[in-house]
């Protein structure tokens, strides 16, 4: 148990970072009503882009921006495959994800992983977040505001704030309408195709930012780092929803719930690892099973446990 408590700040930090990705998943899955599998690829794209650029001496903010841009490009590809080429959204995402595998390796000069030289204090001190900082803040070597929980927490709040504003604008509302009812959206003059592409771009931009932050945090980017990201994202969305659905109705709070969902997910993962309940190899299986169960609950509820409808209601013409 002591292991677990010691590892908790790290788990929360990781959860917060993945939470940004989960917010991206929320945008496509909940708002656009598209299950976008691009994220498994674009997460790594963001990480790879960041590590490569940063290692070459590019300014950290520019490197982050480039990572976001690369993610948005991936979203653009999926969006165009779906809207212009008429490929079902799931398949479009899978195709982009597969293609990104090669692209990601190419970004990393055909290596399966590239590391940041964090042994060098100059490099380490330029970073915004790092696993090292967790310990450093813990033993007083760095001020509290360099703690990843604090830094990524600020990132998350700013992102939620911007998204809250954006989805309240005319354009943002039209994207929500696109996800809610395409026939209605088109009848109201909304270009649903453009909005789907735009939504996928925003989502994958966030996913790539999350990937960039994670590679910064762990000190390397890896070709496999995005594997199963969509499932983790869905898990965070579902956990957040299950716990906060009754209390959080505001859009901004719903996004916050997703972030908290991701944190809880990583705390559970950490607990499982710390207590050595199972080989870490089984974590992905556990995630898949948990998400499958939660996704099937509403369906089963509707099918077998629905309240009986009163007979003899309003007569139908």
């Amino acid at each position: 148990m002591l292991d677990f408590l010691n590892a908790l700040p790290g788990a929360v930090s990781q959860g917060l970072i993945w939470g940004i990705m989960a917010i991206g998943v929320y945008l496509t899955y909940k708002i656009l009503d598209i299950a976008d599998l691009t994220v498994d690829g674009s997460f790594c794209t963001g990480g790879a882009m960041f590590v490569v650029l940063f290692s070459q001496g590019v300014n950290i903010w520019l490197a982050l921006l480039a990572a976001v841009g690369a993610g948005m490009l991936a979203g653009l590809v999926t969006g165009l495959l779906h809207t212009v080429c008429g490929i079902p959204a799931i398949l479009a995402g899978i195709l982009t994800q597969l293609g990104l595998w090669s692209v990601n390796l190419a970004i990393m000069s055909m290596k399966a992983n590239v590391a940041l030289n964090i042994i060098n204090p100059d490099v380490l001190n330029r970073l915004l977040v790092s696993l090292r900082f967790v310990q450093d803040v813990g033993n007083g070597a760095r001020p509290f505001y360099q703690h990843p929980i604090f830094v990524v927490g600020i990132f998350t709040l700013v992102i939620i704030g911007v998204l809250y504003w954006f989805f309240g604008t005319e354009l943002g509302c039209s994207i929500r309408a696109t996800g809610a009812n395409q026939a209605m959206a088109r009848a109201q003059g909304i270009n649903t195709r453009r909005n789907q592409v735009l939504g996928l771009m925003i989502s994958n931009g966030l996913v790539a930012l999350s990937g960039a932050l994670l590679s910064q945090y762990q000190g390397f980017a890896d070709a496999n780092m995005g594997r199963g990201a969509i499932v983790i994202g869905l898990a965070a969305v579902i956990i957040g929803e299950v716990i906060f659905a009754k209390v959080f109705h505001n859009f901004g709070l719903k996004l916050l719930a997703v972030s908290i969902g991701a944190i809880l997910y990583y705390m559970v993962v950490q607990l499982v690892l710390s207590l050595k309940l199972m080989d870490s190899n089984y974590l992905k299986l556990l995630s898949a099973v948990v998400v499958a169960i939660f996704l099937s609950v509403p369906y089963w509820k509707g099918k077998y446990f629905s309240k009986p409808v009163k007979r003899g209601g309003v007569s139908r013409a």
Partner: protein
Amino acid sequence: MLKIENIYKTFNAGTVNEKTALNGVSLHLNEGDFVTVIGGNGAGKSTLLNAVAGVWPVDEGSITIGGVDVTRLPEHKRAKYIGRVFQDPMMGTAATMQIEENLALAARRGKGRTLRSGITKAEREEYREMLKILDLGLEDRMTSKVGLLSGGQRQALTLLMASLVKPKLLLLDEHTAALDPKTAAKVLAATETIVQRDHLTTLMITHNMRDAIAHGNRLIMMYEGRVALDISGEEKKKLTVEDLLAKFGQATGSDEADDKLLLG
């Protein structure tokens, strides 16, 4: 206002399911015309409305609204000129969005969607007044999700949305068919009020011959993808259901009209 010139539409061309839904339809509507459309199942009524709305492109012919050729325009661009209410109450509104948000979306039909606020305070007051006219108590539930409303309430709301930005053309696709008789009558009355108030050029499909006769200044009957009957003016005013069936029989040489039209 609306000029439909000789349009054709065939679905599943070249397969066993080939169906010619529109077989050379021409129709001209003057400004302020309120045309009711009747016809049996598969006569091409809804297909005609969908062709005008631009749900898919027509195979041949042209469609002009208020002097603008919209034949090649995609659905969302035509929406600038057209207000629509669908048969399915679920189709015209976004269930997961609030009543006021749905209205705000409709208020921006035909305009660019910018980064300005999606709904302003002044708008909210405006919508509250408009909802009062519907007399369904919706003015007190403006932030409720539309998914919580009944079918009738949703159709009334859709009607309001369709006319919020005055359309050059209002398309009503059996918008009362899915409602119980009492609600249907209420929605139809609201339709009449709005159409008269704004002098809207309207195409209204209905399954109910009595409604088709009671409303509008012109009635057309479709049969096998064509306009089989077109009655307007004094003749329309004096029309009875019996007349209509007799005329339909003469026009098409078919006696299947009775069952198909009355029951359809």
